[in-house]
């Protein structure tokens, strides 16, 4: 596991812990424009959020807190998530859904 992958899992686990209404976190992969190289990019499915489309929020790296890469968070409702999976709601910049980052207590993380 490389450093970015480790930081991605670390940040996702903290988000799961703080917001129990998050049912699923997946990484986001980049296409051609506005790539996500050296960035942690997470799509978070939150039952408590508002349906308002895709709004990527960007955060700076905080190495002192174990997150040495900038991060991008996209939060969606479960319904929006289903629309994304059916390709009815598109992620911007040719981004695509990456692997699931499971909760730490849900078994194998690799």
């Amino acid at each position, binding site marked *: 596991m490389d450093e970015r992958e480790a930081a991605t899992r670390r940040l996702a686990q903290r988000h799961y812990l703080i917001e129990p209404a998050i049912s699923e976190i997946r990484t986001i992969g980049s296409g051609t424009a506005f790539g996500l190289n050296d960035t942690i990019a997470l799509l978070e499915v939150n039952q408590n959020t508002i349906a*308002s489309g895709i709004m990527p929020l*960007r955060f700076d790296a905080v190495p002192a807190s174990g997150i040495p890469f900038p991060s991008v968070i996209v939060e969606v409702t479960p319904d929006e998530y289903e629309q994304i999976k059916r390709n009815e709601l598109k992620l911007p910049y040719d981004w695509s859904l990456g692997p699931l980052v499971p909760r730490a207590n849900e078994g194998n993380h690799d």
Partner: protein
Amino acid sequence: MNANPGNWGRAFAKQAQADFEAWSTLQGNKAIPVCHKLHFLQMACEKLCKAHLCKQPGADPKVHQSCHAYTAKNLGIIIRQQLSLTPRPPKNHEYLQDRCNLIAREIELLHPSVDNGGKRPDNCEYPWEQGGNLYVPATWTFPALNLLEAQGGRALLKLIYNAILRLEA
């Protein structure tokens, strides 16, 4: 400052800091109506959210400037990130996150253009009519946003302010 995404984020954060500190300065002045104090808090939170939206390469800051319905969706994400990056997060972080989601919606409703489909016309700028009665912001108490006395309120305010300062670094 060049107009790149990082600087747009810093510019929104700097203005958010000024708004937040204006809110803070007014707290001790009982002659100032609650609506004016909350107006600064609403603007600070809105700009904090827009700062993170504008930092994303490819985002159009002009699109974000004209809309005011960002706080309810995004303030909770920012507070979650802030709690995630705090070396020793408060033990009641789950409670704070839950409170934040409720308060973020109340803050967003302070803007006159956000009224939950006409169900929440109360706002901190213009008089409104509800149930045949007329209300004035300057005499309204906004009980849902008495954050300095509400449980978890002060912790949330600190998290908001620290999130603003982190963006300016």
